[in-house]
């Protein structure tokens, strides 16, 4: 079976984002989010590996009326697997974690990751108390997820998108995190100190 192109999958997933807030993890997820369309409501991480889902949790807690999507990769999710337990206990109804899973550490030479060797992140999320967690392998499934992703749920959700491990041209968002922070907060009506 041909695996999904991660750029197509990300664009399909966010096609109905509405006013959802999106945090992306370092490396390819940040490039994928930027390629899907730059937006003040995007916060791109360029480091702090392991943090994307948890930045999402903090944001979801602070903005309970908004859908929050944390877009990350298998490498980052594996580094911060404790986050699954923390989010599973916190039970935010407006947080979805989306793992673009190519089974490899794509930024560092395409070494096989743990998911490429059999570790199942969706099963781990369910075991941690997520309301929904499953693995998607086709673009049609991803398109069908776009609308429910922007709506409240019974609890935290995690979706693993199986994507191809292939080199893609970089699509680089701004690296100035102060700019990104102020732009993001301004979109929520929050001021600058």
């Amino acid at each position, binding site marked *: 079976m041909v695996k999904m192109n991660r750029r197509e999958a990300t664009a399909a997933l966010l096609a109905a984002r509405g006013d959802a*807030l999106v945090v992306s993890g370092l490396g390819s997820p940040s490039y994928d989010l930027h390629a899907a369309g730059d937006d003040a409501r995007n916060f791109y991480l360029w480091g702090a590996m392991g943090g994307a889902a948890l930045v999402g949790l*903090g944001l979801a807690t*602070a903005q309970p009326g908004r859908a929050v999507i944390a877009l990350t990769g298998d490498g980052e999710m594996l580094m911060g697997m404790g*986050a699954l337990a923390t989010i599973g*206990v*916190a039970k935010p109804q407006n947080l979805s974690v989306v793992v673009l899973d190519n089974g490899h550490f794509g930024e560092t030479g395409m070494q096989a990751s743990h998911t490429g060797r059999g570790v199942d992140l969706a099963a781990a999320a369910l075991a941690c108390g997520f309301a929904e967690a499953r693995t998607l392998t086709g673009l049609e499934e991803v398109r069908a997820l776009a609308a429910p992703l922007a709506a409240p749920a019974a609890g935290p959700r995690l979706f693993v998108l199986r994507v191809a491990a292939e080199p893609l041209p970089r699509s680089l968002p701004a690296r100035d995190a102060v700019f990104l922070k102020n732009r993001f907060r301004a979109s929520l009506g929050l001021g600058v100190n």
Partner: protein
Amino acid sequence: MDDGRAGWPETVFAALKAADVRHMSYVPDAGHAALITRMSADPEIATHVLTTEEEGVAIAAGAWLGGVRSVILMQSSGVGNCVNMLSLPAMTRAPLLMLVTMRGEWAEFNPWQAPMSRATQTVLEAMGVRVLRADAPEDAAEAVSAAATMAYEADGQVAVLFGQRLLGRKTW
């Protein structure tokens, strides 16, 4: 025994409330137990228990992006777990307030606490976090209040270390 120590967590709680802190995350420590209980019981404060301290650094940055002031409670050993994640508040210049109870520096029975205890302030400062200390109960709230101003009003990354002498001997 009331040696004046018993009330300090309540004064710290009042300082955090005065600073409009609405979120707290923690890895427990006996020295933080009263404050954790107090904050968890407050309906205006959301709390998250963490599996490791660095999670709190990421959650606090997310909370600030969403307009909420967060504080992280941890023991000195947990500071070592935070190091790379401290890049996040450093780069975003987002407020960070960490309250750290010290082990390994006063009447400590467990030698395994010593290495990270010695490194706590050095590691924080190496990552750009300003360190304040409180070694007497009457100083705790003022240090927290000063740190909260530096964090939330001045976009600072600040840790307050509560000395083990303030906390008292651990009952063993």
